[in-house]
């Protein structure tokens, strides 16, 4: 009898322990880059899922109510902010009916608040004649790994607040992530040495943090008004400009309207460089570092060294 009792108590203890391990922090991120950072910071103490898969342009994610199922169970929502998710996140939050992650809730985290410097903040009047302009600034900041470090540290603080028991682990993992970035910075920097002497034409302002971080020289945008198809006149102007310059690199994301980007590259006489927009957007870029590696490698390949005479 005593043996049976002991077994029952042991089973209860096992279940209680199992329950504790299952009680990990449920983190939902809006974009895949934030998911990769959350996984790096949270480790085994968190369960991370993302709303917008890597291959999809987060500007235009359909607000499928089925996505709100993830949000309904979330303890922490990490979103990009700067109006990247303006077209769909509020609808999903409404359907999720989860007060923990509503604006102002403890699990509501706008990751852009971690940034020290936001690019492309419009000075002066903003209106929609400028296209789908982000009035708060360019939202694609995770393309600069130094920003990813700031976000990782902010995530570790928030995760620590929500799960004080593992606070030290979150802090430690964020610092491991930061050290990894610091270790890789020289290599990424060296890779793009030649590209710094080239002229870059980008399809959309998606690449501004990447080019700014690496000191690349952007000379034009094919999509001159965000979210609006470029006019033939503007495209011709970009082609003319590219033809006037030596060493041009044309960059687009895999979800951009590549027929226009291809035409521009073709008429300038250079190959089109198609880059993954975020982690997981192309095969082999699921990991955040693999994603940044891919960006640097592809741009470096598009900028062959000048032939010495």
């Amino acid at each position, binding site marked *: 009898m005593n043996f049976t009792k002991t077994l029952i108590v042991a089973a209860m203890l096992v279940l209680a322990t199992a329950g504790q391990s299952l009680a990990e922090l449920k983190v939902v991120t809006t974009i895949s880059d934030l998911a990769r950072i959350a996984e790096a910071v949270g480790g085994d103490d968190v369960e991370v899922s993302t709303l917008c898969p890597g291959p999809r342009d987060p500007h235009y994610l359909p607000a499928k109510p089925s996505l709100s199922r993830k949000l309904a169970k979330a303890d922490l929502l990490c979103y990009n902010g700067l109006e990247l998710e303006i077209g769909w996140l509020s609808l999903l939050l409404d359907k999720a*009916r989860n007060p923990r992650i509503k604006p102002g809730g403890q699990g509501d985290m706008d990751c852009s608040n971690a940034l020290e410097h936001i690019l492309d903040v419009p000075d002066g009047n903003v209106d929609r004649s400028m296209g789908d302009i982000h009035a708060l600034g360019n939202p694609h900041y995770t393309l600069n790994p130094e920003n990813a470090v700031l976000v990782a540290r902010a995530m570790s603080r928030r995760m620590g607040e929500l799960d004080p028991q593992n606070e030290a682990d979150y802090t430690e993992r964020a610092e491991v992530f930061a050290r990894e970035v610091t270790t890789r910075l020289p290599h990424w920097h060296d890779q793009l040495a030649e590209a710094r002497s080239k002229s870059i034409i980008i399809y959309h302002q998606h690449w501004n943090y990447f080019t700014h971080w690496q000191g690349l020289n952007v000379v034009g945008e094919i999509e001159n008004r965000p979210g609006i198809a470029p006019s033939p006149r503007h495209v011709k102007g970009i082609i003319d400009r590219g033809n006037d310059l030596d060493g041009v690199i044309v960059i687009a994301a895999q979800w951009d309207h590549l027929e226009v980007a291809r035409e521009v590259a073709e008429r300038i006489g250079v190959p089109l460089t198609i880059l993954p927009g975020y982690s997981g957007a192309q095969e082999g870029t699921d990991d955040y570092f693999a994603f940044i590696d891919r960006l640097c490698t592809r741009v470096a390949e598009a900028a062959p060294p000048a032939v010495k005479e």
Partner: protein
Amino acid sequence: MSNNQKLLSTAVLVTIVLLAGTAGAQTSSTSTGVSRLMNPALSANGLFLARVSRDDPSPAANGIFLQEAEIQMTSVVDPFWTADLIVVWAQKEDSDTYDTMIETASLRNRSMPAGLGLTLGKFFLPFGKHAMLHPHQFPFIDAPLAIDEFIPGMIDVGVSMDGTLPLPWYSELVVYGVDGQAGPFNRDNRDLAFGARLSNMWDISLDGTLELGGSFCSGPNADSDLTGSSQSNIFGADLTYKWSSGSLSQGPAVNWTNEIVIPEPDRNATGNPFGFYSHFQYRFGRSWWLGVGGGLTRDKSTYDGGIETLQGWNEGKINVAFVPSEFSSIRAEISYQESHESSRNDVRYSLQWNFTIGSHPAHLY
């Protein structure tokens, strides 16, 4: 307007302007800074129509019209509520005057215990897919005949509760009790209307979803002699397939919606009335949509010379829309309607355009 009325109006207007200026000067601390942050998100929409009818010479079917103008305000009220207010000026049928209508004035709480949501006020009743759309969201210029005939104006005042069911797929149930003012009902007694909608959605691929919905509502009617009851019951079912290219921004997309509406038959009728429509839309360019739709209604039966005839209409339509951004569109449409039991028919050629300014909330999926 008489001269005296004009004078009075001018005086009132000048007084208001002067008072506003004074107030602005005296209370600058409340008209800037934090108070401005607390202003609701404000947007306006204008919907215009140019139309020519082949067979209908009436002014309502021929001309250029401002169909509707709308002002919408949305804001968080306090930690518990979010409020929506939508005021609409809609053109009266067969007239160049406008009705002012409060389309929505409601409080929403989505932070109730057990994941429930609560809505109080005046709102669109959740019945099917089309009845919840604002006119500027319609996939075609006119609502389907099935909607116009059996569930027009599904807006009412009351309370609604919603929540998701614990199922492996997304399943949302909404139940409501309202005053009974909505289009299909007639509130000449103290009866209230009530109803429910169950919507199920499956992700059948990364980019495609299938939604299956069922709706029911019941409310007071005015003609219990005809219907045999003082309550009208209406049933509905809908099936929607949506797909959009995940690999291309603003790339190809498909919306295919099918809906059937079945009102309870009148006591004296022998046929089973129903209405059905099917709408297919395809985005074939970054800013271009093609729409093809059809539908029919079958209403109560009549006996004509001993032959039973089910009254009703058939319709078909096709349109092309240019949508340069989510804030404007222009579309050309040809629509055809024919009477089921006679040779009456009509073809309409329409051009519709609309704009949205301000901070307009995103539309539901």
